[in-house]
């Protein structure tokens, strides 16, 4: 295997929980864990984005390192002795998951819920502990932000946002280069916002949906999913995924059509596809709806061109 600059990279060997594994030089501890068959929780990491190191849920213990290190971004070095399941690692991961769960609605973050269960994270225990010590009941601080439904393509529910930055990365120089969103505000009031917090259609957003595709919590959600959830009809277990090619321009983006009851409910692209790296444009992501339109009806607007004349 040659690396992208054409040179043959050398291998490094690390020990993960006592198991030796070799990966190409430059790859991360996370990649080594995956190669060793060790699953690692991640929230702010995605295979098609640059690591931003903010969620700290992937931390591992590396012998000789004072602090825990983020597996998603630290390159594996020859001879590293890595523990992924020590009490210190499990404790740290549990705390991260509890803190996030205490402030955010993670009810639609399926993967995070699985890891929370795995590490026995109990987001409610801070409220309970505080209540015991004070005379009055303590309300736990919770991000409270009404769902923003501003168009027909996707919604933003920032009470579910854990500020993983993936949407910012996908909108910015990791993929789309539109830079429509960034983190604004500080501390507990930090939120992902458009410029001056304008409504999405008025912002620089070009609706590629690449932010939605990388969101781990459902804070950004396709409108189709949002609407189906609202009526209790979002059934991931009943959905099929079919890989095909976009019907618009000639770039050849591969699409994964998620279908439920013989209708498309979501469109994604494989992160490992050489053409898209998982990213799409507005047409590929959202332009499929015509296949479910009542077929063969003339458009209602036909008479609108009547004002045009030929000479």
């Amino acid at each position, binding site marked *: 295997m040659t690396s992208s600059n054409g040179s043959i990279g050398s291998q490094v060997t690390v020990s993960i929980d006592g198991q030796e594994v070799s990966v190409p030089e430059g790859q991360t501890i996370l990649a080594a864990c995956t190669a060793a068959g060790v699953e690692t929780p991640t929230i702010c990491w995605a295979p098609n984005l640059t690591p931003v190191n903010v969620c700290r849920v992937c931390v591992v213990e590396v012998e000789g390192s004072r602090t825990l290190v983020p597996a998603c971004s630290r390159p594996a070095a020859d001879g590293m002795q890595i523990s992924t399941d020590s009490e210190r690692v499990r404790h740290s991961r549990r705390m991260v998951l509890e803190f996030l769960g205490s402030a955010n609605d993670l009810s639609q973050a399926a993967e995070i819920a699985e890891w929370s269960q795995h590490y026995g994270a109990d987001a409610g225990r801070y409220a309970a502990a505080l209540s015991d010590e004070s005379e009055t009941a303590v309300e736990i601080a919770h991000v409270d932000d009404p769902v923003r439904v501003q*168009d027909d393509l996707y919604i933003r529910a920032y009470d579910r946002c854990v500020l993983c930055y993936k949407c910012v990365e996908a909108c910015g120089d990791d993929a789309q280069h539109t830079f429509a969103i960034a983190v604004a505000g500080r501390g507990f009031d930090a939120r992902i916002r458009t410029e001056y917090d304008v409504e999405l259609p008025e912002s620089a957003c070009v609706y590629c949906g690449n932010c939605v595709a990388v969101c781990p919590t459902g804070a950004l959600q396709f409108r189709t999913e949002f609407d189906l959830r609202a009526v209790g009809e979002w059934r991931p277990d009943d959905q099929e995924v079919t890989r095909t090619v976009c019907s618009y321009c000639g*770039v050849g983006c591969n699409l994964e059509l998620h279908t439920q009851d013989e209708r498309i409910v979501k469109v994604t692209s494989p992160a490992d596809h050489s053409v898209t790296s998982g990213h799409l444009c507005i047409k590929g992501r959202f332009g499929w709806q015509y296949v479910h339109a009542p077929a063969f009806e003339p458009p209602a607007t036909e008479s609108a061109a009547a004002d045009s004349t030929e000479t």
Partner: protein
Amino acid sequence: MFGLGGGTCSYQEITETDVILLWGSNAREAHPIFFHHLLRGLKRGAEMYAVDPRRTSSAEFADVWLGLDVGTDIALANTVGREIIARRWHNESFIERATIGFEDYAASVEPFTLDEGARLTGVPAEAIAEMAHAYATAPTAQILWTLGITEHHTAVENVLSLCNLALLTGHVGRRGSGLVPLRGQNNVQGGGDMGALPDRLPGFQRLVDPEARERYERVWDCELNPVPGKHLTAMFESMEEGELRALYVIGENPADSEANVAHARKLLEGLDLLVVQDISLTRTARMADVVLPAAAGWSSSEGTVTSSERRVQRVRAAVPPQGDARDDVRIIGDLARHMGAPWPTATAEELWEELRTLSPLHGGMSWDRLESSGGLQWPCPHDDHPGTEFLHSWLWADDLDGHTPAPFTVNEHRPPAEALSEQFPLRLTTGRVLDSYNTGAQSSGYSSPIRTGDTIEVSPADAAALGITDGDAVRVSSPRGSVNMEASVTGRLPAGLVFTTFHFPDLVDANLLTNDAWDARSGTAEFKAAAVRIDPLRSGSAAAAGGAGG
């Protein structure tokens, strides 16, 4: 080009190249995910020169924008070529070994000095010189183009004038360097490869070649008509002459998409028989005697499409066809059998496996390989072949691997067919925007928050001269027709140039304006250059203008 109808490079190479000439392409909006690859190239340090009459959203990412006058591409390319030769930046050993016709070419571009080029194109001489220097001296460089090059009455010569630059510098046939026409439709490459051209057999083989024909005749057990058919534009000429009386249209909407569309509609109306097979009731379908409802090929049928980088990929059925719609293959097969041809019913896989026995380009692409890989790039001649990343490496082989040398061509600068006049003083050009597509048969099906409809974009200077502001209703007229539209004032355009899309023909019949003068060799009409005038409509009549599609 050079015998094969496809772009020479892979997308990966644009991320590794040194200089990019984006010429007549707004890939940021028309090929957004290819542009992601290009952006990776820019991030890595590539220089980009954007050649476009408009300062497009793609041009915003360029180091230099060359805002040439519409229809002066050959003059610009010839000027670049002359500058390269005059400075002796051309690759003499490559030219000597791999090309013919250099002397004639050099003589033909001799009059195109920087000053003359600047006069003809409106691009400052320094910018032309800078682009010539960057392109000629770069280790690797690519020229990319789309319809800004081909929708002119000089379409083929425009392309050839760009090919000359690659031959002059050796920027073709090597990894990272090449000539890349970005394909505008998901299978326009595959359609041509499969013989949906008047003079080609499947596998891009020439119909007039008796040996090729014979191979197909043997497998198909029939005799093939050796006379090439007509391309789209020639068909309309033939309708005009009363020779062509029946038309079977598959997946095309000429009643909206043709230039000078009023004329095209008249010809379609005059046919004895019009059959339309499409995924929706387009305007053409509404004019038809018979409509054959077709399933959407990408989501309701099995098959393949071929991308801009010659990558053959599988499409798969995910949802059932709407209503009575059927798979295109089945419709065509049923029709043939109704007409008495003994065609067997065949699956997409069976058809593909037959194709690859006949087409050397696709010989190694078994259905199984296509199924399990992320697609394969032709040429892929045998089962163990990995597919081809870039074309024409033979140009760099000592004996050219037995190929004949690549020819330089002499291309004369000819301005747009329709000159500006006192009556029609503005140049109209057309193009796509990000969220919409062609005549809207697909893209009108979803509600885009960034959609503005077909407005007429006007430069601030012209808007001031006309006394109009953003959102005003105006009447746009060409020698062929008039439409009412909403004006959109934008600094992306120089004075004298106006722009519109053609995505909402049911709201704004933009192709009433465009010119159907066409290139004799490719049959492409000059959508990119019409002469128009703009008249303000009385204020308050914007609603009546019907310009703002939603």
